[in-house]
């Protein structure tokens, strides 16, 4: 379970996140959606343990990501928006490196790497160096290293961006399987069709705050439209125009 409460983070004069609160439960896929600059990546960076919040806290399975960073990180499979591969390492070596950093080694790790290579359809390039990989190949390697230690919680920034149709379906199937096994999955995506299909709960944020949240069905019902894209646009418009004196939006929270 990932619990974010009252999270605030500013970069200079820019308030990236301002008092954001949300919970991503176990056995659920929670979608964090919002326009560019809404604060999704900053929220994820704090949750990954990369940067310290100015205020508020993020806890993974009860472990505070600032005070107990290593324990929290052991429980998270992280896919940041920058995939970042080492051009001189092979796909398999990338996954092995992260497996080692998570305390895995020997035959257990090698079996897990083989499993991920098959699962993410990396057979064709698993032993090739990463220089020249396509975006889809880079994403598969990044997913592989996020999943190598079979984390209970996944935080995925745009997990299917750049993948071909077959791979997208494979990743979605994988995420549903993990959800059914009890994993907590928090993801962001700009593809409304995808979040509609995958997510059990949606959290819409804007300007660093939650403006609406609920099941896709609840949000569709509130907006009076089956099209999630329409729901998203209407939510942002309502949240921007229709807030009370304390800044609370009229959207469902």
């Amino acid at each position, binding site marked *: 379970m990932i619990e974010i409460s009252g999270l605030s983070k500013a970069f200079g004069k820019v308030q990236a996140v301002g008092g954001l609160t949300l919970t991503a439960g176990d056995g659920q896929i929670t979608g964090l959606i919002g326009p560019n600059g809404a604060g999704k990546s900053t929220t994820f960076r704090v949750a990954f343990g990369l*940067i310290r919040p100015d205020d508020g806290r993020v806890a993974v399975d009860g472990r505070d990501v600032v005070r107990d960073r*290593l324990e929290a990180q052991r429980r998270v499979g992280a896919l940041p928006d920058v995939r970042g591969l080492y051009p001189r390492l092979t796909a398999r070596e990338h996954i092995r490196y992260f497996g080692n*950093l998570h*305390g895995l080694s020997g035959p257990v790790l090698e079996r897990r790497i083989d499993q991920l290579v098959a699962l993410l359809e990396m057979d064709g390039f698993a032993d090739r160096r990463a220089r020249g990989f396509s975006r889809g190949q880079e994403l598969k390697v990044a997913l592989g290293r996020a999943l190598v230690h079979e984390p209970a919680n996944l935080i995925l920034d745009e997990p299917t961006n750049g993948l071909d149709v077959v791979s997208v379906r494979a990743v979605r199937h994988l995420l549903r399987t993990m959800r059914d096994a009890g994993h907590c999955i928090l993801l962001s995506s700009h593809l409304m069709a995808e979040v509609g299909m995958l997510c059990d709960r949606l959290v819409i944020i804007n300007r660093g705050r939650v403006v609406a949240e609920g099941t896709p069905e609840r949000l569709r019902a509130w907006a009076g439209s089956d099209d999630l894209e329409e729901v998203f646009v209407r939510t942002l418009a309502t949240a921007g125009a229709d807030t009370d004196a304390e800044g609370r939006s009229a959207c469902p929270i």
Partner: protein
Amino acid sequence: MSDLMPKGAVWPWWRRCGVVLRKEVVDHLRDRRSIALALIYPLLGPLVVGLLLQLSAESQRGVHITHEITVAARGLDRVPELASFLALNQVELVASWGGEAQGPGKRGRVVLDVPADATPHGPFTVRVLFDANNVTETAIAGRVTELINSYGRQLERQSLVAHGLDPALIQPVTVERVHTGHRLDLSSVLYNLIPPLLIFMIFLGAVYLALDSTVGERERGTLEPLLTAPIRRWELLLGKAGAAFLFTLATVIFNLAAFRLVLGLCSGGALGSEAAPGSGTFLLILVLSLPVMVLAVMVQLVVAAIARTLKEAQIYLGLLPLVPALPGIASAVAPAEPHLWMSSMPVFGQMTTFIRLIAGAPVSWLQVVLSAVITLVSAVLVFWWAARLYEQDRTLIAD
């Protein structure tokens, strides 16, 4: 809360550092730039010094002189055969240099001094007085020395054959070169260049690895995923520092081995009084330079952490090796007497020791230990600073 436990054991810190170190070594062994810096650049200094030594040696032997030369001679009338031999070989002999005194510290021209007890058939020693700081005088002295040696060998053969002896047994005439300038011969200056060149390589050897594994990693976007792994920032830094240290060590070993090889081939003894430093000296220098290597790696990591971009870091780290090497270059020309305060300056303390070791001068072991301790303490402080920098958001996130 999830009851799914994370797979993998919690390894001790040194094992996590080892994972990072191994990855960096494997990664950079595949990188031509890192290999070039570690294995090819260290050969350049020794090649330059070797070339200069060879040219100097040839110059001192007068190899390049083919025209007539003039030298002043004192007492050569005692050995007229030698005077004839020199005249036959295009050496013009004059009685004196117009009243100019010739001796240590006095600028003048080459003088041959035949001792009062010299006899035509020897043995006797001809002194060749010259200023080794004067290139022309050095070359003329070298030419005359070669000729006198040649005359000596000729005389030796004649006299031995006349007595039915093997000519290889004795040498009736020897020559002693007396340098009258302010300093010793050129070889000592060239040998003194070895420590600053070595320090330069220490600060250059792993520079690409330090850049690539820090600011380069941030620009490439690999640092952010890496920091999501359960490893403390200082552990990560220590692993990277370990890899950079290994590359620096390889650089220094190659550098010193190349110096030893080149000096052996050029035979420093041919230049005059300075004998080439031996393998033991180079081995000792390698051991004593270990603390400097540690400090160099830590400084590189801090500079790379402070820099905002790879380009900025390249500028800083490109200049960095010059800072510690410049005082050494000054010391090469005018070696300072070692004082205890010099040890308090990391790197400079070691450089002073290296210069003395190469010159074969005695070394203060108190100074050696003190400089090692101070350098290591400085390295730890710089590492602590680098680790603190790595905790800051700006060091990690390129935005």
